[in-house]
C-alpha cells in the first residue's frame, strides 16, 4: 500500500477515535439542552471527574497491577456510577432549585466558585486556607442569595441567564475543587487493559484505540435503544418536546430530568476513561478544552439532537486530527471554532437541527 495512503488511514482512524470521545461528551450536552434548554457548562468537568474516579477505582482494585477485561469493566462501572451520582447532585442541588424559583443555592455556588477561582489564580493559597476561602465564598453567596430572595422585586428567577451563570459557577467550583482534592499535578492513568500493536493490512493500530472505538459505539447504540424503545426514553423525548404536555400524561418530569443528567454524566465518565486508555495523562483541568469542543460538536450537529451530537463529535475529531497531521498542531484548537463559525453561517440550527420557533 502507498505510504501516504497508509498515513492518511491511520490519521483518519485516530480522528474517529477522538471523534467518538467528543461525541460521548457531546451527547450529555445535547441531552440536557434538549430537556432543559440549558447549556450545562459543568459537563466537561464531569468528564474529568469520571477519569479520576476511573483512576482511583483502578488503583483501589489493583487493576493497574493485573490488567484485564473484568477489571476494566469494574473500573467503568465504578466511575460511571460515581459520575452519575455527581450529575444527579448537580441537577438536584443547583439547577432544580433555580427551576423552582429559588436562587439561594445558585448564589452559594457562584460565590464559592468566584472565591475558589481567586484562590487558585491570584492568591496561591493551599490546603486549609483554600478550603476556608471557599467556605467564605459559600457563606457570602448564600447570604446574598437569601437577601435577594427576600427582596421580591428580584423574584422572577427562572431566567435562562441565571441558569447559565450558575452552570459556569458549578464548572469553576468543580475545577477548583478538583485542584484541591486531586492535586494540580497530572496523574498517569494506569494501563487497565493489555494493549499491543496490531497490523491491519499494513496499517499499524494500537489495540486500545479499537477498544475505545468499540466501547464508544456500544454506548451510543445503547443510548439510542434506551431513548427510542424504553418507557423512560419515550418519557424523556416527551419531556424534551413539551414539558407541560408530558406532565399532563402523568410523567414525573423532575425524575426524567434527573435521569437525563445521570445518563449524560455516565457517558461523560466513560469518555474520561476512554481518554485515559488512549492518552494516559489526566489532570483536574483536563475537562475544559474537550468540554468546550464537545459543546461545539453538539452545536455543530444541532443542539438537542442525539444523532447530531455524534455526527458533530466525529467531524470535530477527524478534522482536528487531520489538521494536526497535515497542517500544523498550532491550529488544533482553532479548527473547532473555525468549523463552528463556518457551519453556523450556512446552517444556523446545526447540521441535523431543525429550526424551532421560540415559544412565547
Amino acid at each position, binding site marked *: 500500500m502507498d505510504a501516504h495512503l497508509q498515513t492518511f488511514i491511520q490519521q483518519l482512524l485516530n480522528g474517529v477515535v477522538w471523534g467518538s470521545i467528543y461525541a460521548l461528551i457531546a451527547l450529555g450536552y445535547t441531552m440536557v439542552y434538549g430537556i432543559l434548554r440549558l447549556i450545562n457548562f459543568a459537563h466537561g468537568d464531569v468528564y474529568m471527574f469520571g477519569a479520576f474516579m476511573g483512576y482511583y477505582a483502578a488503583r483501589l482494585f489493583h487493576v493497574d497491577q493485573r490488567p484485564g477485561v473484568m477489571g476494566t469493566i469494574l473500573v467503568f462501572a465504578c466511575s460511571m456510577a460515581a459520575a452519575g451520582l455527581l450529575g444527579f447532585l448537580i441537577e438536584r442541588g443547583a439547577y432544580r432549585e433555580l427551576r423552582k424559583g429559588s436562587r439561594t443555592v445558585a448564589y452559594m455556588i457562584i460565590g464559592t466558585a468566584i472565591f475558589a477561582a481567586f484562590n487558585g489564580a491570584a492568591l496561591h493559597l493551599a490546603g486549609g486556607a483554600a478550603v476556608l476561602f471557599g467556605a467564605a465564598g459559600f457563606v457570602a453567596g448564600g447570604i446574598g442569595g437569601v437577601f435577594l430572595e427576600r427582596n421580591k422585586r428580584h423574584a422572577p428567577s427562572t431566567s435562562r441567564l441565571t441558569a447559565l451563570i450558575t452552570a459556569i459557577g458549578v464548572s469553576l467550583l468543580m475545577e477548583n475543587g478538583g485542584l484541591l482534592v486531586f492535586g494540580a499535578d497530572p496523574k498517569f492513568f494506569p494501563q487497565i487493559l493489555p494493549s499491543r500493536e496490531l497490523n491491519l493490512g499494513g496499517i499499524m493500530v494500537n489495540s486500545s484505540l479499537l477498544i475505545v472505538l468499540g466501547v464508544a459505539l456500544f454506548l451510543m447504540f445503547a443510548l439510542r435503544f434506551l431513548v427510542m424503545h424504553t418507557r423512560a426514553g419515550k418519557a424523556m*423525548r416527551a419531556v424534551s*418536546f*413539551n414539558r407541560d*404536555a408530558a*406532565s*399532563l*400524561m*402523568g*410523567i414525573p418530569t423532575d425524575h426524567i430530568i434527573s435521569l437525563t443528567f445521570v445518563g449524560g454524566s455516565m457517558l461523560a465518565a466513560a469518555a474520561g476513561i476512554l481518554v485515559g486508555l488512549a492518552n494516559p495523562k489526566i489532570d483536574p483541568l483536563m475537562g475544559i478544552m474537550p468540554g468546550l469542543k464537545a459543546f461545539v460538536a453538539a452545536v455543530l450537529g444541532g443542539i438537542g439532537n442525539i444523532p447530531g451530537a455524534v455526527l458533530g463529535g466525529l467531524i470535530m475529531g477527524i478534522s482536528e486530527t487531520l489538521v494536526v497531521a497535515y497542517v500544523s498542531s498550532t491550529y488544533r484548537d482553532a479548527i473547532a471554532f473555525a468549523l463552528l463559525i463556518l457551519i453556523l453561517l450556512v446552517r444556523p440550527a446545526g447540521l441535523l437541527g431543525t429550526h424551532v420557533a421560540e415559544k412565547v
Partner: protein
Amino acid sequence: MLEIRGLDVYYGAVHALKGVSVRVEQGEVVTLIGANGAGKTSLLRAISGLVKPRAGSLKFEGRELGGMEPHDIVKLGLSHAPEGRQIFANMSVHENLELGAYLRKDSRGVHDDQERIFTLFPRLREREKQGAGTLSGGEQQMLAIGRALMSRPRLLLLDEPSLGLAPILVREIFKTIREINQDGMTVLLVEQNAHLALKAANRGYVLETGTVKFEDEASRLASNEEVRKAYLGG
C-alpha cells in the same frame, strides 16, 4: 366530583382568576365559555396543576389538588387535553397514545383502550405508525382527545377542541364528546364556540376577565339575553 371555591391565580403580576367558583357533578358535561383572556385556560391549568393557585380550594372527589404536581393529579383520574392540542409531533400516533397511558401497568387494558379510541376515531387507526406532526389539524385534535382518554380518567378537561378546525370537523368532534359522555365520562369543556358548547353541555359558566359572570343550565344560558348578545352573535 370537582368543586372549586374562590380560586385566585396570578401570572406574575397579572391576576388571571379572581375568586372563581365552579362545580362539576359526576356524569355532566360542563362548559366554560368566554372571550379570549377571560381565564378559561388558566382555570384548566390550575385544575391539572400546571399553575399553582395563590388562594382558594380545588377539590376532586373530596381531595385537595392545590399544591399537587401535575403527574400526581393524573393518577387521581383527571386528564387534560390542553389548548392547541400539544401532541408530541416528533413521535408516532401510536407512541402518543402510549404516552397517554404512561402511568398504567395493565398492558392488555391499554391495548383494549387503544382499540376503543380507534373505533371512536377510525382515522387514527389508518395513521397509527405515522408521525403525529404529519396529521391534519382535525386528526391532531382527535389524537389529543384520544391521548387524554388513554389514562382512563373519570374527569376529562378539554381546552378548545374546535380551535382552528373546519365546521364539519368541529361537528364530528362534538359528536364524539357526546358519545364519550354517554359512556359515562364527566367532561369539563372550555370553548370559544359558545353556540356549540352550550348545545353539548348540561350546565355552563360564563367567564369574564377572571370572574364568573353567569352560571346556569346550558339551555337557559343560551337563551339569556346578555349571553346571546355577547357570545352568540345576537
